[in-house]
C-alpha cells in the first residue's frame, strides 16, 4: 500500500482524515515535562487515538515506524507494531530489512533487538543473522546488545560451528575486547563443539590466554579469563 509523503504532517494526509487526534493530558503540575518537537507531538496524538482502539492496519504500522524513528525506546509502539505485523501477515523479511536499516542508526536500543528476536522466532530461520550481527559489531565491537542477541541466536539454533574462529578474528583485531573474551567463555562452556571439562580444552584455553597476555601484559581480559 502506498502512502503519501512522510514529510507531510499527518493532519494533511488523506488516509488520516477520519481520525481525531488525542493530545497528551499532562495535568496541572507536570514533573519534568518535555519540550516535544511538533513532529513528535503530532505522531503521538494520532498514536493515542488509534492504539487504544487496537487498530491493526497498514497506516498504524506506518505510524509506529514514524514514532520509533524519533523515540527508539518506545516500547508500547514496538509491542503494537508486532501485533500489527502478525495480524496483517506482513512478509517478515521486509521487517528484517527495516530493522537492518534501523539498527544502523540505533544500534543500542533494547527494544530493537528484542523485536528482532520475536521476528526470528516467527520465521524460525536464522539465516543471514550472523552476518547482520557481524556488521553491527564491525561498527562497535563492544555493543553488548548485539553480543547478547548473538548468544541467543547461537543457543536457539545451535550455530556453534565457526564461532571460535569468529572470536579469534575479533581478538586479533583488538586483544582488549572483553566482550569477545566473554563470548569465548560462553562458547567454551556452553557450546556443543567442545567439551569444557576435558583436559585438552582447558590446556588449549590456558595456552591461548597466556599467548595473549604476552602480547599485552597489562591487558586485564586474558588474565581474568585464564583465572576463570
Amino acid at each position, binding site marked *: 500500500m502506498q502512502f503519501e509523503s512522510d514529510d507531510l504532517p499527518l493532519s494533511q494526509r488523506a488516509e488520516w482524515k477520519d481520525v481525531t487526534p488525542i493530545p497528551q493530558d499532562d495535568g496541572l503540575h507536570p514533573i519534568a515535562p518535555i*519540550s516535544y518537537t511538533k513532529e513528535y507531538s503530532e505522531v503521538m496524538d494520532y498514536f493515542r487515538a488509534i492504539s*487504544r482502539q487496537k487498530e491493526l492496519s497498514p497506516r498504524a504500522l506506518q505510524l509506529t515506524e514514524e514514532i520509533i524513528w524519533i523515540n527508539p525506546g518506545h516500547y508500547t509502539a514496538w509491542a503494537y507494531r508486532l501485533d500489527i505485523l502478525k495480524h496483517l501477515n506482513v512478509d517478515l523479511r521486509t521487517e528484517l530489512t527495516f530493522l537492518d536499516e534501523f539498527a544502523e542508526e540505533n544500534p543500542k536500543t*533494547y527494544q530493537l533487538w528484542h523485536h528482532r528476536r520475536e521476528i526470528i522466532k516467527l520465521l524460525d530461520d536464522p539465516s543471514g543473522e550472523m552476518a547482520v550481527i557481524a556488521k553491527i559489531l564491525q561498527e562497535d565491537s563492544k555493543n553488548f546488545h548485539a553480543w*547478547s542477541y548473538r548468544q541467543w541466536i547461537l543457543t536457539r539454533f545451535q550455530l556453534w560451528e565457526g564461532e571460535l574462529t569468529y572470536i579469534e578474528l575479533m581478538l586479533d583485531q583488538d586483544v582488549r575486547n*572483553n566482550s569477545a573474551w566473554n563470548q569465548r567463555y560462553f562458547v567454551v562452556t556452553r557450546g556443543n563443539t567442545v567439551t569444557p571439562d576435558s583436559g585438552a580444552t582447558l590446556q588449549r584455553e590456558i595456552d591461548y590466554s597466556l599467548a595473549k597476555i604476552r602480547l599485552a601484559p597489562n591487558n*586485564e581480559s586474558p588474565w581474568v579469563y585464564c583465572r576463570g
Partner: protein
Amino acid sequence: MDPPTFLPKKHIAYFQRCLTLLPHPYQSEESVRLSLAFFCLGGLDVLGALDATLTDDQRQGHIDWVYAQQVTPAITTVPGTHGFRGGPFDGPLDDRVNGVNYVTANLATTYSALLSLVILGDDLARVDRKAIVRSMTYLQQPNGGIVPHPYSAECDIRFLYCACVICHLLDDWSGFDSDRAVEFIRRCQNYDGGIATSPGEESHGGMMLCATASLKLMGRLADGLPDRVAVLRWCIDRQNQGFHGRINKTDDTCYSFWVGAALKVLGHYDLIDDNRQREFLLTTQRHIGGFGKAPTEYPDVLHSYMGLVAFSMMGESGLAEIIPELNISKESYQKFLVKRCV
C-alpha cells in the same frame, strides 16, 4: 586558573531547570519519563534543596501527577500491567468503555514512582499494593528473572532489582519468589567475578549494584554471592581514575555511582581511591551545573544525579547521605517510615 571545585549551587539550578522543562532530545526517553523525574527530585533531595524549590501546592500537585500515572485493575485487566507507567504519553486512563489497549506500567517506572513519592513526602497510601504485588507474580519468570511489563521479553537483573525495591517499600514480598531470584543472580555471576545483565552476558557495573542491592534487600547478601573476594576484586578493578562499567572500557561518571554504591552495599567503600575519583568527576562536572558522562559531554539528568550521589558517598559536606540499596536519602526514607506508622 583555579583548580575546579564542586559546584552545588549550579547543580541545584540545573535540576530545577530540568524539573520545570526538559529539552526535546529527552523525547526519545519519554517512555521512562518518571525515571527522569526521579533523577531531578532525587538530585534536589540530595542537595537539600527540595523545600526551597517547591511550594506545598506544587509538591502536592507533583504527588498527584505521579498518582495520575498509576495503572490499576479498574483501567486494564491485562495481567502484569499494574503499577506506574512512565508518563501520560500513551493516552488518558479513564476510558474503559472503549477499551484501553497497550497501556501498561513497568517495573522501572514503578520503582521511580515510589521513590519519587517518598521524596515528595507521600506515605504511599494511595498505591494499589495488591495489584502491584499480583502483577509481579505474572512478571517473574520460572528462572527467577523478571520482565518489566507483559509486552516485554527482557528478562534480566535490572528489573529484578526494581522489583526488590518495590517489595521493600510496599513491605510485601508475597508476589516475589526470593529463592528463585537469588538463584538467578548467582547464574548472572561470571568467571571474572562480575555480574551480567542475564546469564552468559558480559559483566557490567550497573548490574553489580542491581545484584548486591537486591541481595541486601532480600536479606541474602551473606550467602547470595559466595565468592565475595572475586566480587570485590572485580569492583575495585573498575577504578582507573573514575570508574568504568566493563573491563577495558573508558571511565564514565555513572559508574562512580553504580560500582561505588555496590561497594557501599558490600561495606567496602574504603577500598576506592577518593582523590582520583574526585579529580575525574570534576572534569565531567559542567559549569552550567550537572555532569556529563565524560569530560567533553553535555550534562544529562541521569549522569548528573549519579555524579552528585558519588560526591555524597565520598562524604562531601552539605549533601544528604544515601541508602545505597534503596537509592534514596536516609532522611527522606526515615520520614517515610515514620509516616507509614501513623
